């Protein structure tokens, strides 16, 4: 649970100041990996890249090609826009349960 939360928080933004990494994109790869219990090596083998490249992708320091983005999309079974975005992702807990950053909750209509 802590691993998933840490990954989710780290994945909200690629840099501490909220700006994306050198690649210019935000991504949810670390969160999706944590959900599925995948190591970087396993994900790298699945999409046929070096595991160092997975690290670059997660940090936002590299923007994938269209082919690699589609490979990740096919592997996770999600659309590309659910994995990569030009704007910061909202935390999944906030999207699903409506829990804001202060810890309060609100019912989702």
């Amino acid at each position: 649970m802590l691993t998933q939360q840490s990954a989710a928080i780290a994945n909200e933004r690629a840099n501490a100041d909220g700006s994306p990494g050198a690649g210019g994109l935000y991504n949810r790869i670390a969160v999706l990996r944590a959900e599925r219990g995948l190591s970087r090596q396993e994900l790298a083998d699945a999409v046929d890249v070096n595991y160092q490249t997975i690290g670059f992708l997660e940090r936002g320091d590299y923007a994938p090609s269209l082919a690699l983005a589609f490979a990740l999309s096919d592997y996770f079974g999600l659309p590309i826009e659910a994995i990569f975005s030009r704007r910061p992702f909202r935390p999944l807990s906030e999207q699903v349960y409506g829990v804001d950053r202060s810890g309060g909750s609100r019912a989702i209509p």
Partner: protein
Amino acid sequence: MRRTTVFGIPMQTRTARRRLVVSVYAGLALLVAAGWGLDRLQTTGVYVYFAAYFIGSFVFGGYGPSGLIKPFNGRGPRVQPMPSSLVELQLRMTGALERPDPDAYRNDEREMGRRDRVHYQAYQAICVLLAAIWFLALWELHPPRFVPAGLLPVLLYLIALPGVLLAITLPQAILLWTEPDLEVEAEPDLRTASH
């Protein structure tokens, strides 16, 4: 990266790789200076070239059969045909004949992009040297009066030799200088960490 050590020294950190690049070029500069003092690089210049070729092929990698950087052409080592099937069988039984790991020589898209980028950067520096060589060669054909006799061939050689040395080492040096710290190993299995 194909390998992470050079003569047993770990090269995962960028700091270590930068020290290697500085050491290599300082060593080559010393060799050039020593060769100049010995015989004006007439014969020693060839040895300096071979030293740079060795470093580029076996230490830096990229264009050679070994080294830190994966082959730029993405090709693995050639598999020589066995002289006899019995020899191959014995080698396989002892584990001496293992298939090379594709990750050790195949570049993925990010690595190919980095390869192209460092060659672009190195190309600019080498073109400046080439232009200087051309300019000096032009002066060699039509020497201006203010240039002392015998100076132009020396200048030509002193620019051409570093140009050749940079041509066979600069892309790899830029790559080793700019790549961030390598992860020592892949992350442990998250399935065990999350429970």
